[in-house]
């Protein structure tokens, strides 16, 4: 199939579907190879990048979805009733960041890092479909493993997990150095006080 023709068909399908469609599914529907499809997608992207387009193509791992460009948001709120955005509390966000960066991860691992029980936060994240059960750890008790969802990618504007915001490498390096020197240093000052325990 001609790339231009394929691009128009992909656009039509993505428009009608609204939700994301996987690249594999599109290849199957149009009976084309991945390479052909990606050429068509590239063509669409080029078109949407232009100034006269209010639509953009969002890639979510191996799924494609159309969305409005951010600049139109203020006008859109005048007309489109936006689905009420859930506000994630700090504890839910902390839990989510652990799942995002350590996935697949068990409840116990999350709780070890946070130092508190995370039942509520995990349930909320499951409810919002930001995380999901992705399997079970091959360990005693076969604990559930959690990972992030496509909805997570969409909600956080992340193309794929490799696209997650990175820690500033300088800060990490600095942390490491300090930790290393810490191990050899002996601090006397904190030893001087008496123990005064009463709980």
């Amino acid at each position, binding site marked *: 199939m001609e790339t231009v023709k394929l691009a128009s068909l992909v656009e039509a399908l993505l428009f009608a579907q609204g939700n994301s469609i996987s690249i594999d599914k599109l290849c199957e529907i149009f009976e084309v190879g991945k390479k052909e499809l990606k050429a068509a997608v590239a063509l669409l992207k080029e078109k949407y990048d232009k100034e006269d387009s209010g639509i953009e193509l969002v890639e979510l791992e191996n799924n494609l979805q159309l969305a409005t460009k951010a600049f139109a948001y203020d006008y859109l709120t005048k007309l489109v009733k936006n689905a009420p955005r859930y506000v994630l509390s700090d504890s839910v966000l*902390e839990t989510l960041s652990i799942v995002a960066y350590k996935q697949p991860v068990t409840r116990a691992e999350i709780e070890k890092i946070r130092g508190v029980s995370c039942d509520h936060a995990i349930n909320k994240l499951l409810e919002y479909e930001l995380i999901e059960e992705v399997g079970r750890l091959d360990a005693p008790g076969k604990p559930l493993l959690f990972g992030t969802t496509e909805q997570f990618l969409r909600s956080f504007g992340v193309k794929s997990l490799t696209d997650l915001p990175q*820690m500033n490498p300088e800060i990490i390096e600095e942390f490491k150095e300090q930790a290393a020197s810490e191990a050899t240093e002996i601090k006397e000052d904190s030893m001087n006080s008496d123990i005064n325990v009463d709980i």
Partner: protein
Amino acid sequence: MSIVVRLQVFEGPLDLLLHLIDKNKVDIYDIPIVEITEQYMDYIRNMETEDMNIMSEFLVMAATLIDIKCKMLLPKTVNDEGEEEDPRAELVQKLLEYKVYKYMSYELKDRQVDAARAIFKQPTIPKEILDYKEPVDYEKLVGDMTLKKLNEIFRSMVKRQEDKIDPIRSKFGNVKKDEVPLEAKQKHIFTYLSMHSKCSFRQLLERQGSKLEIIVSFLVVLELIKVGQVKIEQDNLFDDIIITRTNENMPIGLDADFAIV
């Protein structure tokens, strides 16, 4: 040193510790454990939570801090490589790890705010397409199924149903069970006891008795105890009950007012 952290809500003990470290402007890698512990204890003493689960999480950290505080006073332990170990090292690692994820959670939050500005579309697929159904391909559906095979399926199903029916029992009509004949039971027990001055309860039961039969027999024995004809012993729970006649010379029997309807 008085601190006003009481009103602030912390996500957990690690969050509180990070806050105290920050507040005292000390290095996370060189925590003045005595001061921080005191401030930490001060905070949890004033914690306004009734939730024991939350409280216990904070108390576990308090115990850890006190443990570290004690270790700091003891001579330093030396590891295999001849380096002195800092009792705070593990806690520092935990705080660091937690700090990283906490930091990333703020990064994510920013992303979410930006991403929320993109609006997705609801599906607009015409109803007739949604309702569309592929016509049934009967050749594929029926496959190599033939009428003969269908007949076999029917036969084997009928056969299976036959096998489920007990050929003998299914021919029985309505058999009414006799009620346990109380008088016969009494008579049997009296006769047995007049011949055996000592016997066990199980011996009293003829063959394998029904539940009702056991109950009736037991009631007869209980009644005999009541009128002082027998006494019973049982060594352990669920052991057999040993029945002994109190007076072998007295004829066994019950008062007239003993009656089971």
